[in-house]
C-alpha cells in the first residue's frame, strides 16, 4: 500500500524537464514537452498529407487526406450546427489534440492530459471562447440580458455557470485519464500478462477518444447556446 501510494504520487507529480534561464527561470514541465512532441507529430502528418495537392487526377494520399478532413469537419459541424461554422476549425484542432494526447500513453509517454494544468488551460480556453462568441454575436446588451433569462432570479446561477462549466470540463478530462491510468497500474500489479492489454483497449483507446469527443461536444453545446 505504501509503495503503491508513493508510486501514484510520483506519477501525479509532473516533473520539470529543464528550466529556461530567463526571467528568473521558467520551468518547462514534462507535459509541455510531450505537447511539443504531439504538435510535431501532427504537423509532420499534415505536411505529409498536403504535399502536391491537385484539383484533378488526385493521388491516393490526397484522397485519404480529403476523407479525414471531411469526416472530421462533418462530425464537428453536426455537433455545433449550421450557425456555428466559424468555430469548426478550432474545435477540430482541440479534438485532434486531446485525442492524440489521450492515446499517447500507449507509446510510453505520460499523457499530458494527466497534468491538471493542461486540462485547466483547455477548459479556460473553452470558456473564454464561449463568452467571447456570445459577446461578438449578440452584442453587449443582449449578452448581459442572457444572464437574467429565463427569469431574473436565475442570475446568480447563470453567473455561477461561468465558474462551474470550465471546472467540470477540466475535472472530467483529468479524472478520466488519471482514473484509467490508476486502474491500469493496479491491473498490471494484479495480473501482469495479457489481461492489461485487453483492458488497455478500453481504457486507453476507447475512453480516451470518447473523452476528447465529450469535451468538444460540450464546448460546442455551450457555444451554440451562447450565440443563439
Amino acid at each position, binding site marked *: 500500500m505504501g509503495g503503491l501510494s508513493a508510486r501514484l504520487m510520483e506519477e*501525479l507529480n509532473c516533473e520539470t524537464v529543464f528550466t529556461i534561464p530567463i526571467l528568473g527561470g521558467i520551468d518547462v514541465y514534462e507535459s509541455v514537452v510531450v505537447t511539443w512532441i504531439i504538435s510535431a507529430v501532427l504537423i509532420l502528418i499534415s505536411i505529409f498529407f498536403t504535399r502536391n495537392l491537385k484539383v484533378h487526377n488526385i493521388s491516393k494520399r490526397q484522397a485519404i487526406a480529403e476523407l479525414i478532413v471531411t469526416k472530421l469537419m462533418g462530425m464537428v459541424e453536426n455537433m455545433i450546427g449550421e450557425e456555428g461554422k466559424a468555430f469548426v476549425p478550432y474545435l477540430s484542432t482541440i479534438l485532434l489534440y486531446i485525442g492524440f494526447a489521450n492515446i499517447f500513453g500507449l507509446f510510453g509517454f505520460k499523457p499530458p492530459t494527466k497534468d491538471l494544468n493542461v486540462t485547466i488551460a483547455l477548459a479556460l480556453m473553452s470558456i473564454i471562447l464561449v463568452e467571447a462568441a456570445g459577446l461578438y454575436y449578440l452584442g453587449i446588451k443582449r449578452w448581459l440580458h442572457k444572464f437574467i433569462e429565463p427569469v431574473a432570479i436565475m442570475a446568480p446561477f447563470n453567473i455561477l455557470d461561468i465558474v462551474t462549466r470550465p471546472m467540470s470540463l477540466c*475535472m472530467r478530462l483529468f*479524472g478520466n485519464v488519471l482514473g484509467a491510468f490508476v486502474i491500469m497500474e493496479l491491473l498490471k500489479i494484479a495480473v501482469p500478462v495479457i489481461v492489461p492489454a485487453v483492458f488497455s483497449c478500453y481504457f486507453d483507446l476507447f475512453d480516451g477518444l470518447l*473523452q476528447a469527443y465529450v469535451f468538444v461536444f460540450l464546448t460546442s453545446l455551450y457555444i451554440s447556446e451562447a450565440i443563439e
Partner: protein
Amino acid sequence: MSLLAVGAGIAVVGALGAGIGIGIATGKATEAVARQPEASGDIRTTLILGCALAEATAIYCFVIALMIIIMLQ
C-alpha cells in the same frame, strides 16, 4: 491510516448514482432500439454521450477518494 481508508471508501459510495443512471439510460436505449431499429445509430451516439456525462460523477468520487488517500497521509 485505517480511518483514511474508510473515508476513501465512503467517498466512492457516490459512484452508486452513476451506476443507477447509466443502467436506466441503457435500459431506455434498449427499448428505443427495439421499437425503432432503424434509428439505432443515433440512439447509440446519444447513449454513449449520456453515459460519458453520467460517468463523470463517479470519476469525481474517484478523484476525491484518491485525494483523501494521497493528500491526507
